[in-house]
């Protein structure tokens, strides 16, 4: 199976999601990111590599340090994709609530009779 490299691959892994969260506010260097995880530095590096290949983060060399920063537009692709489905289910489940309410009313009024 061909490995896919897109935003969905990027967010599929919990460690990668954590890394994305960490980078959401400020760019950080590789060491600082690795310190936050119990896994080896190599493992973190691999996740960073995948995130880079997926286009979700970019690495910038500054002297000895390598800084990772997020590409928010890429991340927005996921949100964009999910959004119509989220709205669909929100709407439908709201309607379900309305139906359940009428069911409750019906059962209550039938008890009174």
């Amino acid at each position: 199976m061909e490995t896919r490299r897109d935003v969905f691959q990027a967010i599929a892994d919990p460690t990668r999601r954590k890394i994305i969260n960490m980078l959401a506010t400020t760019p950080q260097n590789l060491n600082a990111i690795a310190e936050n995880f119990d896994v080896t530095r190599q493992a973190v590096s691999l996740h960073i590599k995948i995130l880079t290949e997926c286009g979700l983060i970019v690495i910038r060399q500054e002297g000895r340090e390598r800084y990772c920063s997020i590409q928010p537009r890429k991340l927005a692709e996921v949100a964009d994709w999910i959004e119509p489905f989220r709205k669909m289910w929100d709407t439908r489940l709201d309607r379900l609530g309305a139906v359940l309410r009428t069911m409750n009313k019906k059962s209550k009024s039938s008890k009174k009779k």
Partner: protein
Amino acid sequence: MTEIQPFIVERFYKAPARNVWRAITEIAFIREWYFNIPAFRPEPGFEFSFESKDCNEAKIHHCKVIEVVKGKKLSYSWKYEGYAGNSVVTFEIFEEGKNQTRLRLTHAGLETFPPDLLERKNIKEGWNWLIDTSLRNLLEQTPGKFIEHN
């Protein structure tokens, strides 16, 4: 193997679990809140199709019941005619109290659909219509706060 996180939404309803199950499995109720489905039976292998504009312009949806745990769980496949990809919709019912039920909806496999399934312009128009008209009407005709968001 990597696994894509499925889309999950949960709701609390002030209703007995039994009613929630009936609302998602009995055709008369299904048509009230869900889609205009010709028939439904909560039995594995049962197939149904319907047309909906919920995601983009009108599309034919094809579904097939996969799993049924009476009163607790219902899942079926969900795909679009003319498009690649297949997803699975699962309803899970949790009785939290006599008149308190949690419903978890999982829609897994959205990433298998091609990007052209959802054209942005149409989504926006479709949703504006749905939210501005049908949902508003429904909510305004039903007074009181009855849905507790998690």
